[in-house]
């Protein structure tokens, strides 16, 4: 019974982690940016969906769509306002840009967090779920919403895979993540690739955020932990490797669930952190890293 419970609960949370981390890994792979406002963007999507339901009284679908839309806009805003100016500036030496982007996105994330707390209090928000009720899977009473979450996560990841592997634009993105300079030789405008990747990332962030808002709910305090969890999953999987991030998401998700069930929910994140440190000692590039 306990085994099935862990299997079912762990799957939903892991799928959500996978979706959140995929976008994070993607932009690192393509543009070398570690976006520390990741959690803040997810929370923005949740709060937008929540506010749409509560203040504008729109339905669950419209609210969710609005949340994803706002997540996308906020992400593009982050790119054009923070990341791109830093990438293009001549005031900072190339090798220091990474550090400046880390600091600037961190600051940006905290600003979003403060603004959300100011406008909507720091209380946790939950998005009205699209599906309600429970079903039994192998004897485990599972909220239908949990299944919905897992299905949508994999649907989005599947579409992303098709996009990257089956379309011309996708192949350009893939190529850019392997060798940015080589792509320009092929006549692909790198700037367009970057914008496309950030837009994809924005949609992934929005969907992951809204699903999280329906499933567990978030508050402005979740900004830091959400960024940290995406960061550790991506590092564990190997920076820049999307498939590594997917595997790592399940490793972390299940490790957390097992700990929460078998030891105590209070220690939920500890074993995953220890594993992370251990993996980095043995193989500093993570599970499937290539940089």
């Amino acid at each position, binding site marked *: 019974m306990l085994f099935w419970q862990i299997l079912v609960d762990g799957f939903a949370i892991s799928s959500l982690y996978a979706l959140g981390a995929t976008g994070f890994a993607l932009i690192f792979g393509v543009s070398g940016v*570690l976006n520390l406002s990741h959690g803040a963007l997810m929370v923005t999507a949740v709060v937008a969906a929540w506010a749409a339901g509560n203040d504008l009284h729109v339905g669950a679908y419209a609210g969710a769509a609005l949340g994803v839309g706002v997540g996308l806009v906020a992400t593009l805003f982050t790119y054009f306002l*923070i990341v791109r*100016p*830093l990438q293009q*500036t001549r*005031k*900072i030496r190339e*090798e*220091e840009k*990474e*550090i*400046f982007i*880390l*600091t*600037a996105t*961190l*600051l*940006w994330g*905290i*600003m979003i967090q*403060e*603004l959300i*707390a*100011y406008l909507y209090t720091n209380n946790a928000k939950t998005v009205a779920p699209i599906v309600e009720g429970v079903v039994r899977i192998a004897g485990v009473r599972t909220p239908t919403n949990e299944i919905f979450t897992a299905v949508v996560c994999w649907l989005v990841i599947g579409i992303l895979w098709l996009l990257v592997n089956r379309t011309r634009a996708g192949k350009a993105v893939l190529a850019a993540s392997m060798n940015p300079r080589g792509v320009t030789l092929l006549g692909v405008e790198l700037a367009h690739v970057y914008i496309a990747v950030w837009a994809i990332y924005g949609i992934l962030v929005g969907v992951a955020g809204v699903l999280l808002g329906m499933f567990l709910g978030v508050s402005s305090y979740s900004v*830091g932990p959400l960024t*940290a969890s995406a*960061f*550790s999953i991506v*590092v564990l999987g190997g*920076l820049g490797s999307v498939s590594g991030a997917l595997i790592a998401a399940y490793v972390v998700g299940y490790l957390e669930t097992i700990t929460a069930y078998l030891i105590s929910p*209070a*220690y939920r*994140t*500890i074993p995953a*952190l220890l594993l*992370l*440190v251990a993996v*980095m*000692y043995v193989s*500093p590039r993570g599970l499937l890293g290539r940089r």
Partner: protein
Amino acid sequence: MGSLSTSRILLIGLAAVVLASFLPLWASGYILGLLTLAYYFGVFAMAWDLLFGFAGEVNFGPTFLIGTGAYTAGILDNLYQPPIWMCLVAGALAAVAGGVVLALPALRVRGPYFGLTTLVAVLMLQNFIVVDASLTGGEIGLTVPDVISISDAINYLIALWFMAMSGAILFALSRSPVGLILQASGQDAVQAGALGFNVTKHKLTAFIISAFFSGLAGALLIFYLGSASVGTLVDITVGVQIIIAAVVGGRRTILGAVLGAVFLIAMSEALRPLGDLSNFVVFAMALVVVLLFPSGFFGLLTRAREPS
């Protein structure tokens, strides 16, 4: 990008510190209290700059070293009540031990990977403090029976001169050959090693020095505040504020970190009438500095005085 000579900067710094020593004659206790806090934060930020700016280590966990020093001193005072200086020494030594622990992964992993390790270190320390509540006071925080002084002026002067001495030592170190080697190994460890420098030894030194000042400042801070808590000394948001102070003040300048710390604390106080929005505005201003003046306040100041 030219910069002032070491001795001239130290001289200007000394003059500023001497001037600041006369502040208690007219400033209110409240202003002194704020600056006391800002000075300790300045030391945290300078110690962090030595590691990050010079040794090139992305350290997200300055509070691991600070918290280790502060809590060691506080717990010792709570258990045995030795003279305060012994608690301070113990705190600084414990932080140095923590620095060595942190240095081990740093010698193996780089960049974001090391950054994450430091984040994990903070989370671990935080968990230990919360779980082992009987010793550390847990969520409530640790109250120490002794404080150095209840006089605002004395606390202010201690903080000021402690900051001045730490700043002088760290600054001199950064401009010495050791600092140059650190900088070289931070940028390209392999090349620095090939040139015959012992990268490991220098990095370890940087960690130990950074840890020593962080821990000592942390221990001094709790004997000023009279209490230690996760929220004031260990939490990741505290670490973020230290990083912001160092970057806004001017990275790789050591002394700029103090300007950044004073700026952060003064602004959040000056903007208090804005109410809930004050933090937002402070962070927005910091972001503008990062985006438009990446060399920070110190960079702006030194460049403005430079004729070239």
